[in-house]
């Protein structure tokens, strides 16, 4: 198999993972204009919940295939508990304040969740490797890939299509778009903005947790994973344009492909390559590739 094909396949797999971890971040920003720094901790919480739910399932001797359901259930659980708790309990009190204040608030949530995770799960690494190997592997040329990677690609495509259809084709999606365009007018025409915020934030948290839950079988879940992910997720959404679903997808593909190319062709610059691309994009389009033009308000 030639190197080019390996770069493309590795790039697609990495891009899919990046999209899953970044899409919740861009959704929350698009609707609520909150740069949610706690996104990384919610990803970590999803990963920890996946080890707990999946571990319990496997320990009971239930069919291993059900562990995939446990990963999704873990993400839903984290979303339904942490989402409303953070949005109703904290963020609701901060709406209307400067975006920087909200960044600081979510940073505080990030730190609190980091410590709470340590209190709840300890500092020893946890793992749930079973779902990763359960589906076997497939070969492309001389390289073997785990089928689980294919699942990640399919999930990311499903999430992207489902979100696009929801936003473009459903009434609730159009309500959401109205809030994105102008909160005040949306409120004036009778849209319950407060409820839209609650649902959006919960969905964003669920997506962050889904990213963590689906990543858990491939890594060792331990303190520190939150910070690594939030930096990458920011790079992806900044390249694509904060708040843009298409932008997150394109940002993920660009970062994934550039990183795969660097690893194969020039490993010394792998670390630098992602941020070099980000800098380049921001020089040319300071608001990202998919940023919508802003109407000037009087």
């Amino acid at each position, binding site marked *: 198999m030639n190197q080019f094909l390996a770069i493309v*396949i590795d790039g697609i797999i990495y891009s899919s993972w990046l999209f899953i971890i970044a899409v919740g971040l861009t959704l929350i920003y698009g609707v609520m204009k909150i740069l949610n720094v706690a996104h990384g901790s919610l990803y970590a919480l999803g990963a920890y919940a996946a080890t707990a739910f999946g571990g319990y399932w496997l320990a009971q001797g239930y069919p291993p295939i059900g562990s995939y359901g446990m990963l999704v259930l873990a993400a839903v659980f984290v979303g339904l508990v942490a989402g409303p708790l953070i949005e109703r309990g904290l963020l609701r009190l901060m709406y209307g304040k400067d975006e920087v204040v909200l960044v600081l608030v979510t940073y505080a949530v990030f730190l609190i969740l980091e410590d709470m995770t340590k209190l709840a799960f300890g*500092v020893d690494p946890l793992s749930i490797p079973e779902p990763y190997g359960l589906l076997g592997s497939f070969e492309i040329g001389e390289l073997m890939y785990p089928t689980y990677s294919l699942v990640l690609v399919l999930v990311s495509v499903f999430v992207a299509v489902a979100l696009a259809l929801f936003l473009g084709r459903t009434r609730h999606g159009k309500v959401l778009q109205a809030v994105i365009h102008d909160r005040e007018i949306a409120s004036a025409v009778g849209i319950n903005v407060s409820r839209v915020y609650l649902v959006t934030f919960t969905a964003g948290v669920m997506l962050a947790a889904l990213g963590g839950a689906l990543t858990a079988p491939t890594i060792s*879940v331990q*303190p520190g994973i939150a910070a690594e992910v939030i930096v990458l997720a920011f790079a992806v959404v900044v390249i694509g344009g904060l708040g843009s679903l298409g932008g997150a997808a394109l940002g993920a593909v660009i970062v994934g492909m550039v990183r795969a190319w660097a690893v194969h062709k020039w490993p010394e610059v792998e670390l630098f390559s992602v941020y070099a691309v980000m800098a380049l994009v921001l020089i040319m389009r300071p608001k990202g590739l998919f940023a919508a033009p802003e109407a000037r308000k009087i």
Partner: protein
Amino acid sequence: MGKMFVRAVAGLALAAVAAYSGAADAQQKRDKIRIGFVTFLSGPAAGPFGVPARLAAEAIVEQLNAGKVPAPYDTKGFGGAPLELVVIDEAGGTTKQVSEFRSLVSRQNVDYVIGYISSGDCLAIAPVAEEMKKVTVLFDCGTPRVFEEASYRYVFRTRPHATMDAVAAVRYLLEMKPAVKTYGGINQNYAWGQDSWNDFDLSMKALKPDATVTTSQMPKFGSGQYGAEISALLQSRSDVIHSSLWGGDLEALMMQAVPRGLFRRSQLILVAGEPYLHRLGANMPDGTIVGARGTHGVFAPESTLNTWLHKAYRTKADHDPNYPAYSVALAFLGLKAAFEKAKLEQLGGKGGKEEMEKAPGVGPGDEQLIAAFEGLSFDSPSGRATMSLGKGHQAVMGTAYGTTKRVGGKVTVTNIKRYPAEAVTPPEGMSSPDWIKGGMKK
């Protein structure tokens, strides 16, 4: 009247200064000895290294205070004085650690500091310890630069530096697989990963000059996703893959690489693999060459002290001690040996355990302790260490490597080969890269 007053004040001031410096220099009287212990309690290094180190420190201090450590360490505490630990989290970077160190010395009034797993922290703390004149024992960091690029009076390191990890790995590899033609690596992109790869690469060039490098992968520390790196390594078709990955990064690499058959194609060397033998289970392939950064853990020689450490550590944990726990034992026992050697000299060179315990409040001053510590040889659960490098401040020991083999579902290490210190460590006054490039002459 005025002159008399000035003379009286000057006299009192001189007397105070003399009394203070005398106390500091000759001997220190204390009810207990406070030891600042710095290790990772949070962050990625906490689980595999930091927390085992803290558990080991707590177990060792309890055993020392109870006088339950085998001879020659059976005197209670240090020379009869009980020990008290002040534990500090090493996470947060070098700037924070320098502040924490200053606080340990000036606010917490610790007598000695034992600590530091990160090489970056060791390089940052050593000059501060020197400036504050606080005896500090570095227990786990590996960079040879601490004593190869500077000279310290108050700083000691009781474990060997990391050069031997790579040199011994190459010696072992060439004994086991002399026909190696190509080699690649995957190491974290920071000081430890880069140094380890450079030392391995230089050692291969010195001992197997016809072998060539295929690829050197340097993923970000904490990256966690290694799909592209594994593809690149698979395509490189290297005979050997060197890795110094540790913690969650190592576990993630193994979880992702084993199902893809990477190590069926290439011989894997894990220079810091020992703590993960049991954690990785099925993801630790048979035939992996592993090291423990010294004769620690499964490589520790059978001895009363080794048995003692196992038992003591198991009172705090549900697993056997790994190499950071052995490094902690080296630090505490080395400092104790130096302290008691100095105290015995203070007591006129006569007597032993009973005499020291009769005078628990008497202890050596820092200058006496340093004189006793420099060049000291002492026993430990890992074997005998000698402070023979860095003008007597850097320990040397032999090391060992082995190959994994699953027996009855449990990962064991076979074909263990031991290397004496002089075969894997540069002599005094020579830098590690120069020594390796020069053919590693004893």
